[in-house]
């Protein structure tokens, strides 16, 4: 009989504990959710294959451009400042500024992959541009820099990435979409595009790429969205 009560108390404790753990803020800055997010990030890094490629999607499944959503945080479509150029710096041997023409003269990569938005929708477009790994080679990115930060002229929108995802074969600095030059609502003149991250990680309206010793969060990440956000 005493044994039975102990078991019942044990069960009650576990259930109460589970319910109490759920009764806290949903911002995940501390406590249970924060701890679980750190655990999930380790799992995400574990399942990420740095050589694994996302499937190319057949042209017939391309989303009509007008149905492909485009988000920015500025009040109106951000317009590139005069004399726009991309600055690549941080822990690099040769900090370099690239004009669009210089990037377009580098080897071009084309890919048609599925886009996954954190909201749940998917869409397909063909993107072309230059691999970030090629840019990293040119500037001599320090192999010790584990993070890459992307900055923009869209009201300061930014995001930081793990190095492996940034240097993935399907992570490009894109200057074209569906065979045309990038339009202003999709990030002209240059945006980050990747097959291995959620949409909010792919910074549009790029101004800077920095190889860094530590992660620097991001616009949505600092408000509570997952930092790793791999797909």
């Amino acid at each position, binding site marked *: 009989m005493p044994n039975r009560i102990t078991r019942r108390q044990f069960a009650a404790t576990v259930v109460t504990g589970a319910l109490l753990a759920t009764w806290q803020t*949903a911002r*995940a800055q501390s406590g249970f959710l924060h701890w679980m997010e750190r655990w999930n990030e380790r799992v995400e890094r574990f399942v990420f294959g740095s050589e694994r490629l996302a*499937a190319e999607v057949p042209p017939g499944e391309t989303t009509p451009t007008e149905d492909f959503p485009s988000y920015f945080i500025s009040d109106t479509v951000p317009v590139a400042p005069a004399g726009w150029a991309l600055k690549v710096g941080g822990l690099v041997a040769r900090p370099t500024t690239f004009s669009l023409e210089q990037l377009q003269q580098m080897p071009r990569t084309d890919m048609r992959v599925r886009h996954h938005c954190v*909201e*749940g929708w*998917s869409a397909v477009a063909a993107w072309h541009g230059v691999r970030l790994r090629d840019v990293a080679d040119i500037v001599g990115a320090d192999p010790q820099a584990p993070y890459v930060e992307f900055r923009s002229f869209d009201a300061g929108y930014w995001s930081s990435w793990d190095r492996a995802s940034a240097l993935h074969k399907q992570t490009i600095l894109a200057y074209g979409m569906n065979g045309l030059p990038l339009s202003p609502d999709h990030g002209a003149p240059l945006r980050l595009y990747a097959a291995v991250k959620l949409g909010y990680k792919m910074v549009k309206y790029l101004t800077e790429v920095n190889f860094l010793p530590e992660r620097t969060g991001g616009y949505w990440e600092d408000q509570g969205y997952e930092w790793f956000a791999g*797909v």
Partner: protein
Amino acid sequence: MEATDRETRWHGRRAQPWLIRLTHWLNVSLLLLMAGSGLQIFAAYPALGPRGALYGWYPWQEMPPPAWVRFGDWLAGARHWHFALGWFLVLNGVLYLSYMAVRGEWRRRLFLPRRDTRDALLMLVYYLRLRRTPPPIDLYNGLQRLAYSVVLVIATVEVLSGLVIYKPVQLWWLGCLFGGYDGARAVHLLGLGLLTLFAAVHLVMVMLHPRAILTMFTGGKHA
């Protein structure tokens, strides 16, 4: 021989051993929170099918679930809850299945087609008022065993389709089972619908037999 085997097997065993009770109530709490956070996530894009090519067969496109069924405040919060509690739901399920395997509980809980089909049909006929008396009942009748087995299959499909939505590129091979990312989203929501249907029927049935609710707290008499 069969009778002796059965008597010794269940001798001293409660109808609902403590681990079954524990995992059952954990499951109730976790499933409610998973459903609520899942619907909060779904509210961010309450449609099925890719952009520009929504599925024609889904009748509730662009209709978000009502606020009272959602949990997690906002999209990011609901995602944190969903991806945190998912682990515990799976752990709880593994614990339940392991217990059933080790203690032989599956024999009196799961649907074994050769043993239970006839019984399930007789029970169905009884529920349809075509037969006056129910077939003799062990712990569960055949129809219950069928329901409790099918719901385990649905739960497994929920976990697998959820993993595909979480990592559609890394787990592309799993995605093939569901027709890719958008297919997995549709299956994941359909699975929630079926689990809800199961829960509704289950609730009606246990309210018609309140002793079953009590037993899920106390464990019931020793056999």
